[in-house]
Every structure is written in C-alpha cells, then in structure tokens.
C-alpha cells in the first residue's frame, strides 16, 4: 500500500522538477490522445513544441511567441500575488476586457488628435479599467464577506456582454459601414501599440511584462509586502499577529492583478488585435491561471511558463492548419498540463513510501 508522509519542508528538487515532469506527462498522454484522433503523435508533438522555434518558418513564428506570451505573463504575474496570499481572482478575463474597453475608449475619444500623450494615457486608462473591475469582488469580499471566486467569475460574463454592447454601440466605428467593431487603433499612430523593432514582435506589452516580472521578483524577495503576501498564504493566523491587515491585503492583491490584466487588454486592443470587436477576448485571462501555477507562482517561473504556453498556442495553430488538429485539442492539452502539475506536486510536499497494509 502506498503511504504519503508529509515532508517537514517542501522539496526544493521536486518543486523544480514537477513542472518539467508535468510537461513530459502531458506530451505522453497528449500523444495517446492525438493517436486516438488518427494523427501521428510524434509529428503532432513536434509541430506544437518544436516547429515554432526550429522549423524553416521559425522566423515567422518566433515574434508571435512574444506577442502571445506577453499578455499571459503580465496577467499571471498579477494573479500570482493573490494566489500566494490565498486570494482567488479568477476573473482576469473580465478585467482584461474592461481594461481594453477603457483604454480603447480614451484613444477613440481623442481621435484624430496627434500627440504623444495619447498612448500613455490609454495605458493608464486600461490599468484603471482592470483595477476598478477587480475592485468589485475585492470590496464586496472585504465589506460583505462575499466569495471573490464566484463574483470575479460572474463579472467575466458581464464584461463579455458589455464588450458586445460597446462593439455594437458607443465604440462602433462611425465609418465602419454598419459593421460591429471599433476603428482600428493600429492605424492611428498616436494610439497604436506597434512593434518597437520591426520583425521581432516586441511591443510595449512585452516591455511591460518584463518590467512586471522584475518588479514582482524584487517585491517578493526583498520587500516587506512580499513577505506579508507569503505569510498570509502560508499562515493566515500568524500573519494577523504580524500586523498584516487582511482587508488591505485583499484590496492590494486584487487591485494589482486587475490593473495588470487591464493593461494586458489595452496592449492587445491597441496592437495585435487593433480594434474592439465582439469576440476580442480569446481566453488569455483563463490561460494565465495555468501559467501562474505552472510557473510555481514565481516571477521567473511565470516568464518561462508564459513562453511555453505561447508555444502551445502557436504550435497548436500550426498543427491546426497543417495537420488538421482540432482547435479544442490545444485547450484540452493546456487543461491537462495543469492537471498533471497539480498531480505530481504531491511529490513536492509529501514523501511517497510503500508500506505493508496495516490492520486497523
């Protein structure tokens, strides 16, 4: 019979090895799944994980890696603060949408003015939009003890409806011949989030993501707030005695993740997406949850995990067009990855021992 003994301290080795093992297991089980779909598993796995980096068209795909990875990393860094402290903001998707709407609204309101202040103003508006949307579950939790998981999630559906309303109403392009969707911000130089170095995929969102990673690393490793976040997650009672104010902690963590998600939305709507459309959001807010866990809630880990997840998006796209792999198979693969990570994490916290069955 298998017995689990709690380790006095989480294993350092396994906390690094678990994500790797999870990826390997996902590839194996994913391979079986692809074989069941009638595809050559080796070819599919190679297409998803290696072709974007090393194939002859990799020059085309590599910039995509930054474009897809930046929003994931930006959102996941914010989420990781809350997750560490035991505050579950699951509604990043909604905060992303509202951030994009607020930021785009500012840009569209100032059209066609040309000053260099428009884009920074949009970033602020985007962050503010995400922040305010995250404050709703935050304040409700602090004031009424409402469950933040459920409220932040409900607000995703509200945000999706609001997005549709905006794309069809106030933000609709007046010169768009009646089609839903806003003006294309990418064609409005003062408001556009363009590539900084042509052909690299590097835009302001990537820069922001890197700054966020460094900022989070410094705060978590060096600042008292980072210590309080860790304490609140590991020992809530001890944290109270150490002077951590739970209400303040909730508001800061929710606000931080909301603001970052909102910024991610703005960078997306002003750059790669270009315009506010009914289906502007593509689930980055939810995938970022996987990225945060896969990166062990650690900024550097999140950076790596964001890269890996971007890889599955791009590789998945290639596999979809070249091998006819269904789009859903990729989201299944991503969900599976999180499953395996959570499963193998038992090795980090427990020692597995084989023991003879005891007579109770």
């Amino acid at each position, binding site marked *: 019979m298998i017995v689990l003994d709690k380790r006095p301290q989480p294993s350092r080795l396994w906390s690094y090895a678990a994500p790797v093992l999870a990826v390997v297991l996902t590839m194996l089980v994913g391979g079986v799944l692809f074989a069941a779909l009638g595809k050559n598993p080796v070819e599919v796995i190679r297409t998803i994980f290696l072709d974007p980096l090393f194939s002859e068209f990799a020059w085309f795909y590599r910039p995509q890696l930054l474009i897809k990875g930046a929003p994931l990393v930006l959102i996941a860094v914010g989420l990781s603060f809350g997750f560490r402290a035991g505050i579950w903001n699951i509604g990043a998707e909604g905060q992303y949408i509202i951030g994009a709407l607020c930021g785009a609204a500012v840009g569209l309101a100032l059209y066609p003015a040309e000053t260099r202040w428009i884009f920074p103003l949009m970033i602020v508006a985007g962050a503010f939009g995400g922040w305010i949307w995250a404050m709703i579950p935050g304040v409700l939790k602090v004031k009424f003890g409402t469950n933040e998981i459920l409220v932040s999630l409900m607000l995703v559906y509200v945000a999706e*409806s609001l997005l549709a309303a905006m794309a069809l109403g106030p933000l609709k392009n007046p010169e768009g011949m009646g089609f839903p969707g806003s003006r294309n911000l990418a064609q409005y130089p003062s408001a556009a989030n363009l590539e900084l170095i042509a052909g690299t995929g590097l835009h302001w969102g990537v820069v922001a993501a890197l700054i966020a990673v460094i900022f989070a690393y410094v705060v978590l490793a060096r600042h008292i707030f980072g210590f309080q976040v860790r304490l609140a997650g590991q020992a809530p009672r001890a944290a109270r005695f150490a002077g951590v104010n739970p209400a303040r902690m909730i508001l800061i963590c929710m606000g931080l993740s909301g603001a970052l998600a909102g910024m991610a939305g703005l960078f997306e709507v002003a750059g790669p997406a270009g315009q506010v459309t009914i289906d502007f959001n593509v689930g980055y807010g939810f995938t970022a949850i996987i990225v945060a866990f896969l990166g062990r809630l650690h900024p550097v880990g999140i950076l790596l995990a964001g890269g890996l997840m971007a890889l599955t998006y791009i590789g998945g796209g290639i596999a979809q067009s070249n091998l006819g792999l269904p789009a859903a198979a990729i989201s299944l693969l991503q969900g599976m990855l999180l499953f395996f990570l959570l499963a193998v994490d038992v090795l980090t916290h427990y020692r597995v021992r084989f023991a003879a069955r005891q007579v109770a």
Partner: protein
Amino acid sequence: MDLSAINPILLLASLMVAATPILLAAIGELVVERAGVLNLGVEGMMITGAVCGFIVATATGSPWLGFLGAALGGALLSLLFGVLTQFLLSNQVATGLALTLFGLGLSALMGQSYLGIRAPAFPDIHVPLLGDIPVIGPIVFQHDPMVYVGLGIVAGVWWFLNRTRAGLVLRAVGENHDAAHALGYHVRRTRMLAIMFGGACAGLGGAYLSLVRVPQWTEGMTAGAGWIALAIVVFASWKPGRLVLGAYLFGGVTVLQLNLQAAGVAVPVEYLSMSPYLATIAVLVIMSAGRAPGSLGRIFHAAR
C-alpha cells in the same frame, strides 16, 4: 415595446424549465460541499455532461439514455478531481479550475462533429387531473420529466442528509474530517462517493441544456451556469430546501430577461443578458451569512 405580450402563466411555466439545469448541478455540489469538498469544476462537468448526453441521445435516439450517459460522463470526470484532491492531496480550488478548463476543451473536442444537429425530442408529460387545473396546471404540471426528476433528487438529498445514518456520516466528515476519521468513518471513501454524485448531477444539468432547453450542441453552451450553481449553494446556506428557492429565483431572472428581450424593451439585448449574472452577484452579497461546513476546502491527510 409591448409588455402585454408577456404571458405571466407562460413566464412562470418556463421559469421551472430555466431553473432545472442550475438546480440539478447545484444539488450535486451541495452534497459535495456538505462532505467538506469544494469542487469548482461544476462548469466543466456540466459541459462534459452536455456533450456526453447529446452524443448518447443522438446515437440511441433516446433522451433517457442520453441523460444516463451524461450522468456517467460527469461522474467519470469528477473522478479525476476526486483522485487528485483525495489521494494526491492537491489544492481543491486549483484542481476545480483545472477541471473546468479541461472539461471545456474535452467537450469541444468530443462535440465537434455534432454541431448543428437537433437532439431527439423529449415530450412534455401532461400530469393527469393536476395538469388540467387552470393556471397552476400549465405552470407546475405540464413539463418534461426531468423537471420532476430534479425536484425528486432535491427531496431525496434532503431526506438522505437529514434522515439517514449515511447522511449523518457525510455531514460529520464535512464538519470535522479529523474527528470523523478518529471515529472510524472512511473520510476518503465518503468524499469520493459525494464527488461522483456531484459529477453525475452536474452532468444531468448539462444534458438538460443540450437535450431539452436548447436542444442543440454548441461549444461553451453552459455559459457560466455551473458557476451560478456554485453561487446558489452559498445562497442556500448548504440547505436543499432553500436551493430550490435560489434556483427558481435565478430561473425567474433569466426568463424575465428573455421575455423582455422578446418584447423589444428599449434596453439593448447585451445589457439584458447581463442580468442573471448581476442577480447572482446581488444574491451572493445579500446571502453571505450562512455557515459553511467546517472542513470545506481543507485537505485531509490522516496523520499517523
């Protein structure tokens, strides 16, 4: 706008139909949470149930077999959650989220060749005598059988939790798993069974959407119904009777909103369709006074 086009009898009648998927999913989750487990994967189990039910029903032509398949599909998926949280001791919040993400992908993959097909019809039953009562008859006694099955399950759960020994054990496990373990009850076994019951109920709820309510398969068709079910469990303070009230309240908002859309109210459709979610939030704010089971969401690891 013509509000007189809204027929109150039809409105109340469709309320019961709108509430049923949420009611089914919520009653399953209620049992899971009373056993001390927080499974946030309801949405994933519902959508998997929706696609499983649809596939089985179209393959066999029998909605009843479809519902059976949906319950099995939901239970099987919940088994994954159970193994991870009960045997591999993973975090329940994160695992539940993983289950939802996984379920959404899995269902989309399974259902891709079933898009645009209609489900076999599930005729309404007309309860003899009772169905002929004016006003009340059409509202309460002229629905498809699953509406009554759902209410039956709620009644059964109430009886099980409050009137049986096994129900007492389940509640003990949920209130204090260490004490229950010390008394010799099987914490893990109880919880695994509860989790599978929850999965089966969520599957039924999903299949109700794809077989009766819509009756079609579309990706992501649960659209947050699983999360609303979770909210309704909180609203009900973990009590089956109040669960019915919560689900019907939600069903009422949904149906009213749809009727207002049809009546052409001056408010754009997008704003009206937000209302069920906003109502859920409002309900959560008002009803956060209930006491959750003591061991809810905590990992059980028998210290030796």
